């Protein structure tokens, strides 16, 4: 076990990002207190491969009731690594998203767009020993939200990862290249650094595209790196 480098706050949004109105009452106002990383932060939950079932990585199949889900089939490939480029093997990746019409299965979602009886929109997968993951899904649609007049979320997939330690926990969103809504979205723009924001956008890949079946995207995910000196365990 080793400790992790401090979180690079320049790569992340501030807790209060005024364009995203919900942050105003929900983001902490006081700076987080730095504590020395130790045993606690360097450990984290591990998941047995059995906790991912056969169809969990295929959202085009794991919600099927009586037919194929509607929409554009895609396959997302990615590599989970740390800031030193070290692959992060056996990391659990959880996924959830709207359907092709921009509607979530969640009971609270009231957007007037149809549910798809054959698409739930949640799944999970593991990274392999090289840190690579892959899942199949339907490209999610854009949808309106109440942040401001005529506010629309760009197409996105929610992704949650644990990484090797408690400190490396990350929940993020994967966006699609060329989406005109990105430049208008206060959640995407909450990350102030433009270069960092680019890391939230998947790359279209003709090499990963499956002939006659699904468009391919590449979305690599970078977690905090480790400190050089391993901690005594």
């Amino acid at each position: 076990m080793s400790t992790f480098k401090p979180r690079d706050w320049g790569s992340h949004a501030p807790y209060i990002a005024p364009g995203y109105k919900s942050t105003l009452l929900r983001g902490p106002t006081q700076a987080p207190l730095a504590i020395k990383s130790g045993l606690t932060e360097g450990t984290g939950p591990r998941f047995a491969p059995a906790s991912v079932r056969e169809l969990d990585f295929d959202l085009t199949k794991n919600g099927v009731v009586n037919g194929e889900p509607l929409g554009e089939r895609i396959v997302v490939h990615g590599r989970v690594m740390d800031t030193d480029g070290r692959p992060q093997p056996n990391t659990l990746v959880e996924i959830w998203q709207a359907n092709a019409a921009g509607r979530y299965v969640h009971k609270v979602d009231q957007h007037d767009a149809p549910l798809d009886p054959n698409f739930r929109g949640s799944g999970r997968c593991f990274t392999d020993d090289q840190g690579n993951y892959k899942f199949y899904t339907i490209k999610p649609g854009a949808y309106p939200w109440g942040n401001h007049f005529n506010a629309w979320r760009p197409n996105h997939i929610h992704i949650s990862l644990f990484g090797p330690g408690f400190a490396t926990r990350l929940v993020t969103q994967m966006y699609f290249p060329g989406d005109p809504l990105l430049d208008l979205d206060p959640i995407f723009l909450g990350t102030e650094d433009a270069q960092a924001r680019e890391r939230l956008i998947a790359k279209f890949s003709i090499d990963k595209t499956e002939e006659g079946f699904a468009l391919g995207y590449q979305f690599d995910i970078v977690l905090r790196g480790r400190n050089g000196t391993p901690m005594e365990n």
Partner: protein
Amino acid sequence: MAYGETPSQTVGPYFAYGLTAGQYAYDFTDIADPTIAGPDAAGEHIRIIGTVFDGDGNPVNDAMIEIWQADADGNYNENPIDVSETGFRGLGRCGTGTDAKLRFWFDTVKPGVVKDAEAPFVNVTVFMRGMLVHAFTRFYFDDEAERNAKDPVLQSVPADRRDTLIAKRVDTPTGIEYRIDIHMQGDAETVFFDV
């Protein structure tokens, strides 16, 4: 540093059918739930329970709280999570949208003291719509005053904010509860850590 970190983004309001499906009764499995320790786990069985409040003092109904904690002997369980042997998994996850009072709760055992601390505590991660970056905090226990007074992390917190991290023990007819609320803002704003 060869690569930049992937920015964090909010979990948004619709995480439940992906991350907490069992608790919210969606047709999907989950990898963690509010039970951190089953009935067979060794140690003193407790429930940790509380409410998340926003800056207006309103309870938050779409937060997700995770706890990562040591077992009753002070050891983190880093083996692949399998509760069948010890009944202890170390990880818990609870959304605030299913309890009638919008509380989070965790059924667990009181942790032992880990090697590099002086007092027992659980690690807490807070996610919600309106947070672009999750926040880390800890819950300590109010019946551990002597050990709390020696804990380096707790003592590094300004004295007038330390109480925000200390859960209060209440013995109820159904068992031991430790009660603690998370205040995102205001006079009682919870202390969050940069870990």
